[in-house]
């Protein structure tokens, strides 16, 4: 999905809130393929992937 942030600075946490996602159920967030912390700002024109809690095997 594409999301227009209207030029605002937004953190990963803010983005999750905007999407209605519970942070406690989010496992990994990548911004342009890099794992990001929730307090990092989301840059313009980036690709964000949000994954649930995951367990590797």
């Amino acid at each position, binding site marked *: 999905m594409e999301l227009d942030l209207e030029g605002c600075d937004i953190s990963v946490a803010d983005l999750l809130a905007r999407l209605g996602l519970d942070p406690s159920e989010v496992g990994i967030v990548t911004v342009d393929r890099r794992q990001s912390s929730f307090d990092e700002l989301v840059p313009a024109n980036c690709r964000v992937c949000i994954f649930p809690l995951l367990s*590797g095997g």
Partner: protein
Amino acid sequence: MKIIRVNMDHLETRWEPVLPAPALSPAEGYERLGGRALIAKILLTEVPPQCEPLGPNNKLIFAPGLLGGTSLSSSGRLSIGGKSPLTGGIKEANCGGNGGSDLARLGVKALVVEGQPADGKLHQLHISGETVELLPAEEWRGLGTYDTAAKAQERWGADCTVISIGQAGEFLMSAAGVVCTGHREQNSRIAARGGLGAVMGSKGLKAIVLDSAGTAALPLADPKLFRTSARRFAKELIESPRTGRKGATHMYGTSAIVAAVNEMGAFPTRNFSTGSFEAAENLYGQRLREITLERGGKVGTACMRGCVIACCNMFVDENGKPIVSTLQYETIGLLGSNLGIGTLDEIAHLNRLCNDFGLDSIEAGAALGVAAEAGLARFGDKNSFVSLLEEIAAGSVLGRVLGQGAAVAGRVLGVSRVPVAKGQAMPAYDPRALKGNGVTYATSPMGADHTAGNAFGIRQAVDPLAAAGQCEASLKLQLDVTMLDSTGLCLFARPPVFGDPQLMVDLINGRFGWGWSVADLEEFKKTVLKMELEFNEQAGLTSADARMPEYMTREPLPPHNTVFDVPDAELDAIFSAL
């Protein structure tokens, strides 16, 4: 609980009492140890660390965890251990299925196989109640593990658990694992890593059959404490967004992580040449679930009785015929993207062959990737890899080279891009993009083993692409995992006990009444690692073995174009605080 000694020199068996250990002293005696911890202690006490792994002085040990055989969910993993022919050091590999639970219910603290039969013939071991029989099994020579289990269950009963080796183990190949049957359709669980299937083959043991029917429940020192703690444990797993019915682990198994690892650029592709696979979307967990359900297969099934997580699947073909139980992440990586193969059907077929031949799909996949780089197969061409796997099963010269694993294959075939640490193939997380795993691969006494300390997904703690902080993260994971591996708990069941160590202490005290505290548990974890490190040191492993392959320190991995750059000095110092 007692120990069963199986002497293959004289083809004799005997029950042996376990000497009580002094209180709060897990380093002395075997009583307060289980699973991985017990294996470490037995090896350190009884096996010359410089012995030949496939010789008479090595021992092959089967040990349930401390909590195995109880009603605790997800506690039935079976630990198998010995000196590894692959790494030259200590090895504990564990598998799901019913083996751990059955051994515990039979009152077996450890099954220790010693010596070698002089006549070179194969045998089967049957355990039922107090009866332990060592019988000929030469007629099973050359059978894959599926047929071996079928023959054994035909003879001893359909409900028996069968632990066996395939052709790879018979040929003493270092990529050979030990296969164990499990719950219902989960008929092929594998203690895959480190070549323990070859050790079992070197002992002339084709199969172990466990019949735990009629065994009584294990005693509990404090039934109320144990049952209350076990109920809380199960409740937390069921209610967890990770492991509950709507959690990714239950719905997709570990295939759930394909998308994330690929996005992070750590998904090994075409012999670890890049970290992102163009066809990864075909391999996502959601795709596996869709296909499986469309075709009438199963998802969300348990490999062991009583597990509430139930992360397994039965992958079927277009006609609904079972191909393999269970198709999981590591195999999707090493037999999929690593070979340039982007369809689940083809990966499942390769998976089945590995299971049947008794091959570690990680080691085999890495060896096949090396072979493809050498031009012996074509990336993306499943049939070319099927041919190589069949060579392994046939014991041809080429098959014997590949069956010894990726490191030997690389040396013989003249390939320098060989993804191994301590001689063992790397799992499906490229360490250049997930550096915490690189630290685990390099430093763990187990060699390149992601289950020894998987840094994937440690939430926001450490940047996987940065060198900083990886050793601390890996050490904590390595310590915590010793507890799981020693209690029989599945890795996926870790959240409740990692979140609250007192819960683990309560479970242990409820079972045994040892009066442990959290501090005792922390000391226990350190003791296990120290025993393993000591064995490896005596076996001759040095800091030179605790390294990434050189090419990974200079060849950038796309898409991030990073190398493994955690300083050697940090790797060398990781255990200094133990």
